[in-house]
């Protein structure tokens, strides 16, 4: 008998099994994220449920679960039906099923969701004209159309007519609303910025010359004059906005809830409405795609649980790219010195060990360091030197995109250094010698031979750094990621890139949605969706880097397969 371990098969099973387990976990994670995240935006049917005790609710079923009810806690069951219901449950083994219905109408009922146990259901229908309405505030509304009002007078009453009138008017009302938003953001924003600039200019003069200097007095007169002009401009814009609002306010939608309450919603408040139960597959797909579009391109509403995450996507990508822009050159230069210039010895060994250990420092520690060093020391210094007139409001002296990127660059530095060093060490000695023998200097050899040859390895380091950096959250909370920052770090105003601004980040957004949200049931699916998006973005960034690496490798290895095995 040969011992078991003498057979190679044992190791095949062990190694194969380990791989299978890894794959299983990864696939499980991906399936979970895609399953939950991908389905969030699919329009569900609207059900109208009447319970045994006579209460009614209407909404979308979000999920169900089995549970063991207690007799005293049977909900929605009147006293006379209690015994019968309880007996039925006991017969079924004590298990009951209940569903979570998103009932919306928070402004009327003070709750977004309601659990409905199956045993308490008396009647369940899917009303044909039940509308799902996504609003700018108060979350979703579920109700049936009653009338379409123009100037307070109903112009349509039958559900089909109301819906037609709504579809006719909604687009133009939304356009006016968008125009109003644009005016507020751009024109009024412009005016506010000019007022602020004038104030800062005055303050600067005050700091430099003192308050009784003639310059200051002249400046002040100037400021007052321009303030008058700006105020006039502001009033003009305000008038345009008011006109748009007045026009929009003419159109309203009157609805009845399942409970019979009436509610009139101005059309401008409606982001999207659809009669869920009447939709065919194509129309549902349309709603699904439109919601994804809104999600990716719009700003968040309703404490981030509705609307889009565009600022977060932008922040994540910008931060990751800025991080890469800093960490790659620094890491490569440091690795070059360590591998090519530094004389091997105890000091280099110690440095190397220190770098490796840096990779094991908890990321929050980097956050603390970033806050202390970048924000307070460097940022504070910059503020004192260049932005004195804005103090005590910090400009660079607080968390921001630049500081977050630098903190993450520091965090990922060891990854880049180690990967680059390895890549440099893998460049064959014969190639360096060939270059030196041609009369190349050390730097020429590094630049023309060693670096190109090591580039795929350096790209690997970059990919790892991107993957690590883009998904990091903890340090960001300290150095600039915030819950809401609709002002992007890049805009049309000089100097166009505002790296000092705080920013939104998908990872932080996930944390915020999942654990800080008021309406956690509604936020939960968004957590998965955001995760899906974040993973997608990291995937795209990595894919680009991998594609570049593959191209470099191809170019290095030549074309013949024989040559490829060499290199």
């Amino acid at each position, binding site marked *: 008998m040969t011992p078991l371990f003498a057979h190679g098969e044992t190791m095949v099973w062990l190694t194969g099994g380990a791989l299978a387990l890894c794959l299983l976990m990864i696939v499980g994670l991906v399936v979970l994220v895609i399953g939950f995240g991908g389905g969030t935006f699919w329009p569900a049917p609207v059900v109208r449920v009447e319970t045994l005790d006579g209460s009614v609710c209407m909404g979308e079923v979000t999920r169900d679960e089995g549970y063991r009810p207690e007799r005293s806690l049977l909900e929605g069951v009147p006293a006379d039906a209690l015994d019968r219901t309880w007996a039925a449950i006991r017969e079924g083994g004590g298990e009951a099923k209940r569903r979570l219905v998103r009932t919306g109408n928070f402004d009327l009922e003070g709750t977004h969701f309601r659990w409905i146990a199956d045993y308490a259901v008396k009647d369940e229908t899917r009303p044909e004209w039940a509308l799902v309405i996504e609003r700018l505030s108060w979350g979703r509304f579920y109700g049936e159309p009653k009338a379409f009002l123009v100037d307070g007078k109903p112009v349509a009453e039958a559900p089909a007519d109301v819906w037609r009138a709504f579809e006719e008017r909604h687009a133009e009302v939304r356009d006016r609303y968008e125009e109003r938003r644009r005016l507020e953001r751009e024109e009024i924003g412009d005016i506010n910025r000019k007022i602020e600039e004038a104030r800062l200019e005055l303050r600067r003069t005050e700091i430099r010359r003192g308050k009784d200097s003639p310059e200051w007095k002249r400046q002040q007169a100037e400021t007052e004059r321009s303030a008058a002009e700006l105020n006039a401009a502001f009033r003009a814009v305000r008038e345009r906005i008011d006109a748009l609002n007045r026009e929009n306010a003419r159109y309203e939608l009157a609805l009845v809830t399942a409970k019979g309450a009436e509610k009139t919603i101005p059309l401008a408040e409606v982001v999207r409405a659809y009669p869920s139960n009447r939709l065919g597959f194509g129309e549902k797909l349309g709603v699904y795609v439109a919601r994804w579009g809104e999600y990716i391109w719009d700003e968040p509403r309703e404490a981030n649980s509705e609307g889009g995450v565009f600022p977060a996507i932008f922040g994540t990508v910008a931060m990751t790219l800025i991080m890469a822009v800093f960490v790659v050159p620094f890491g490569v230069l440091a690795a070059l010195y360590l591998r090519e210039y530094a004389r091997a010895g105890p000091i280099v060994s110690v440095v190397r060990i220190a770098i490796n250990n840096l990779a094991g420092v908890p990321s929050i520690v980097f956050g603390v360091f970033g806050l202390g060093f970048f924000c307070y020391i460097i940022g504070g210094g910059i503020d004192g030197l260049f932005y004195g007139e804005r103090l005590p409001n910090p400009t660079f002296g607080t968390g921001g995109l630049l500081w977050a990127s630098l903190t993450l660059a520091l965090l990922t530095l060891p990854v880049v250094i180690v990967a680059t060093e390895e890549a440099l060490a893998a460049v064959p000695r014969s190639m360096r010698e*060939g270059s030196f*023998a*041609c009369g190349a200097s050390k730097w020429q050899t590094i630049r023309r031979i060693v670096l190109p040859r090591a580039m795929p390895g350096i790209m690997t380091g970059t990919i790892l750094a991107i993957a690590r950096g883009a998904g990091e959250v903890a340090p960001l909370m300290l150095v600039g990621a915030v819950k809401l920052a609709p002002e992007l770090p890049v805009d049309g105003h000089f100097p166009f890139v505002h790296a000092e601004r705080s920013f939104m980040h998908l990872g932080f957004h996930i944390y915020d949605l999942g654990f800080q949200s008021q309406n956690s049931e509604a936020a939960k699916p968004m957590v998965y969706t955001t995760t899906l998006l974040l993973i997608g973005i990291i995937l795209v960034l990595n894919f680009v880097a991998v594609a570049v690496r593959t191209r470099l490798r191809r170019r290095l290895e*030549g074309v013949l397969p024989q040559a490829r095995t060499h290199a």
Partner: protein
Amino acid sequence: MIEESVRRGEKPAQRPVVAGFVSADEPVGPRAARPPSGLFDAVERGLPFETTVHDELRSCRAEVEIESFDLWYGAKQALFGITMSIPNGAVTALIGPSGCGKSTLLRSVNRMNDLILSVRCGGEMRLSGDSIYSKDTDVIELRKRIGMVFQKPNPFPMSIFENVVYPLRVDGVRDRHTLDEVCEKSLRGAGLWEEVKDRLKESGLSLSGGQQQRLCIARAIAGDPEMLLLDEPCSALDPIATGRIEDLIGELKGRYTILIVTHNMQQASRTSDYTAFMYLGRLVEFGPTGNIFLNPRLRETEDYVTGRFG
């Protein structure tokens, strides 16, 4: 500090005693009459001995003059008082058993050994009269005057064209016309032009081993050097590729002074004009190739070239 003084050509205190350049004037007797000199024995025990240099070499114009050259890898001495003149425009072969210091000597000529931190050396070397190891020698300028081809083909991971013009690129030559001209001239010189003229943009690594080695030769001559150093250029190649390289060496002879290390006796006898036999870091016998192979002065040389040892 020792290293500095050695590079400046000063002799370190612990230099072993070796004989200088001594010509062997003893009459050459019939082969059978030549007694074993016990030279290997002496060398192994570290006793002083004299290099046997044939008279024919004394009248040659020297490209490289080497005088009492010593070299240490850390504490281990690899070259002992090498003294020789490498004749201008001819092919000189270095032969000897493995590990005797052939490559080390070759690499000393263009100071490739500088790349190894532990190396120290002493003695003198001159290229066309210019000191190689003096303090104010510009190593980069020196290397540009000497082309080198290595044991294993080492084309760079770039196009064939860029491989060839590399020495010009590091010189900062940008002019396309010059580069094209040099590329073609060098590839023709290396006998590779016809094979690669249509694929200059392809990677140098896409060539076969023999073609890669000729590409390296093209690269070595692209900088228009005075001298070529070839360190066993054929040892990684098949017989046909080897034959082509040997023919090529014949063609390059005269245009460049060539110093070639080889393991292969036939190759040495076919390609070279002069042959130097080395043993344990010493230069044992140096003379015209014909003499060394057919009529060596020393019994040890004869034993080696006839394959009786080594």
